[in-house]
């Protein structure tokens, strides 16, 4: 599936509402939600918080975000076996991931990277892009 392009302007347009929604889900101040903060490392988000954020975003923006959508999108057109092997993201997979998560600073992509650690890369901008794409797909 071809990736839907998202412009910075589109990200900026949804960011305030995304930030507000995330602050509600995480129980933190909206000013803590910086566009590039790591949700796990920087804001102590846990897996249940991600579910909560997605659910709240669905309701706030009247969109549908299938569960596991970010990782699925991040994988792009790469078949499973080419994206990861034994739970570790391949070089090809990492390149794809860096392209999809272009908002994440390069130094945060650790190697070897476990598939289970991909959510550690997610930032509020990642979710803004998810929202914009869901709006475009609707």
């Amino acid at each position, binding site marked *: 599936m071809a990736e839907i392009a998202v412009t910075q302007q589109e990200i900026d347009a949804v960011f305030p509402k995304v930030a507000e929604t995330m602050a509600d*889900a995480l129980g933190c101040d909206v000013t803590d939600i910086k566009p590039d903060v790591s949700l796990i490392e920087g804001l102590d988000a*846990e897996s*249940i918080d991600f*579910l*909560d954020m997605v*659910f709240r975003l669905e309701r706030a923006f009247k969109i549908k975000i299938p569960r596991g959508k970010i990782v699925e999108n991040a994988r792009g057109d790469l078949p499973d076996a080419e994206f990861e092997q034994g739970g570790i993201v391949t070089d090809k997979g990492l390149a794809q991931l860096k392209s999809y998560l272009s908002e994440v600073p390069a130094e945060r992509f650790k190697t070897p990277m476990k598939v289970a650690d991909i959510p550690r890369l997610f930032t509020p901008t990642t979710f803004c892009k998810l929202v914009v794409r869901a709006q475009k797909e609707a």
Partner: protein
Amino acid sequence: MKTASGLAGKSVLVTGGSRGIGRAIVETFAGEGARVAFFYRGNDEAAQDVVQSMHAAGHHVHAERVDVRDSAACVQAVEKLADETGRIDVLINNAGVIRDNPLTALTDDDVATVLDTNVGGVFNTTRAVAPYMVMQRAGAIVNLSSVAGSKGGRGQTNYAASKGAIEAFTRALAVELAPRKIRVNAVAPGVIDTEMSQAVRDLAGDEVKARILMRRVGSAEDVANAVWFLASDYASYVTGEVFHVDGGFKFD
């Protein structure tokens, strides 16, 4: 010490609420001042009877025809309920069926129907409701298990497997949802005087009473009271538990 259950005004969803134990649960929560919605599979007449009698008593009760095996229908009905009430505070997973027969006589349909309804239904409804409770950072879920979940019963492999699964589900979900202050418990009724268990009681006759310490079959209200307790603020420090309501049946 608390002096109120905390259930007045709460939004409560009960699956399988038109008859038997489910009906008693609906009546108990509605009587406490909760706003109760219940799912029923197909008996419009029984469902309307519950709604009308509750309305006549001045209670808030609403019925929705939903087959809990249908996950999309569960999501749709739960969304509708949440839109109307703004929140869902309590979920009672009660819907269940029995298709007793010795293992080798069970048809594929006997196995699938029991597992899909009793276990699949709990997954479908809880998956639809849990996000609201997570968002609220509060909630109570009570699942209906059975004495069969922990004690062998002839001709009940499918039913026992479904109830054992519900108990395991209860413990696992309690761990998952505890960070958001959502409690998950189960009630395991013994032999209860309901339409659904009539055949079992007919088969066992008086012999079954001799194996119950309290020397009587339980009532649907006995079970509803335990469900009420676990959903109430009185049980605010109880989660991941299976509460047996069987008159001592398991101790024979």
